[in-house]
């Protein structure tokens, strides 16, 4: 069993989940994250941390598409272990419909965690 990142992460990518994940099982695309299903230990710590409420347990109904997407891109995208800078317009996209069709990017994320030292220091 595992947790799964779903549509509302797209273009929100707050990354609060990354900070609390004990097993570093998040992988970063250009505008969303995914969870590696073989590394997630189902602890559920990330679920309430997501401001976009995009993380759900795989026991929820209708997740086939997202299970496949998480499994596929966790093999391709880079591992992310520290929160970077969320998109400036993240809030504007929070809750928008059809984000996958409109905005999903298969490109890997850039490692921008080094660009937020002040934030990291403020949240040890």
């Amino acid at each position, binding site marked *: *069993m*595992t947790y799964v990142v779903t549509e509302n992460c797209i273009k929100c990518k707050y990354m609060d989940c990354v900070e*609390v994940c004990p097993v*570093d099982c998040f992988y970063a695309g250009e505008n969303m994250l995914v969870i590696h299903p*073989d590394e997630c*230990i189902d*602890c*559920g710590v990330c679920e309430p941390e997501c401001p976009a409420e995009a993380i759900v347990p795989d026991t929820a109904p209708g997740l086939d598409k997202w299970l496949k997407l998480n499994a596929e891109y966790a093999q391709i995208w880079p591992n992310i272990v520290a929160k970077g800078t969320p998109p400036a317009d993240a809030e504007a996209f929070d809750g928008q419909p059809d984000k996958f069709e409109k905005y999903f990017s298969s490109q890997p994320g850039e490692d921008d965690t080094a660009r937020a030292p002040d934030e990291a220091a403020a949240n040890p």
Partner: protein
Amino acid sequence: MDAHRQTALEPGPACCASCAAEEPACFDRITEPAIRLLVDRFYARVRKDADLGPIFARAIKDWDPHLATMRDFWSSIMLTSGRYHGNPVAAHRKLEGLTPQLFERWLTLFAETCGELFEEALAANFMDKARRIATSLQLALFYRPEHDRPRSAP
């Protein structure tokens, strides 16, 4: 600062009256000291257990860092402290002789220890997490053994 730490190294006599008597502590909230007591008391019990003791004795040569790791783990799980970062699936794949029965035994001892130390609802919170993680580890170990590979460095 750290009265429990000394005795945590050994499964023998405990360091204080509470530990020695294994008295119910009944914490009404989850704190770092409560997690410390839980981890130390639980693993003292594991080490004495006929089924689990030999498995852990083979795997853990130096208990002090292991107990520190497990305190960090449960702190990260229950208090979202973010202190633990590791790969428990890979750590368990290195162990020989694990069976579903041993996971059940682990859960039984953990439930006993949580039940002694925490109020009922809090003990249930610990057990909910412990059962989910145990299930997840068993799925990885017993149903996905082909994925035995080191993870790439971040």
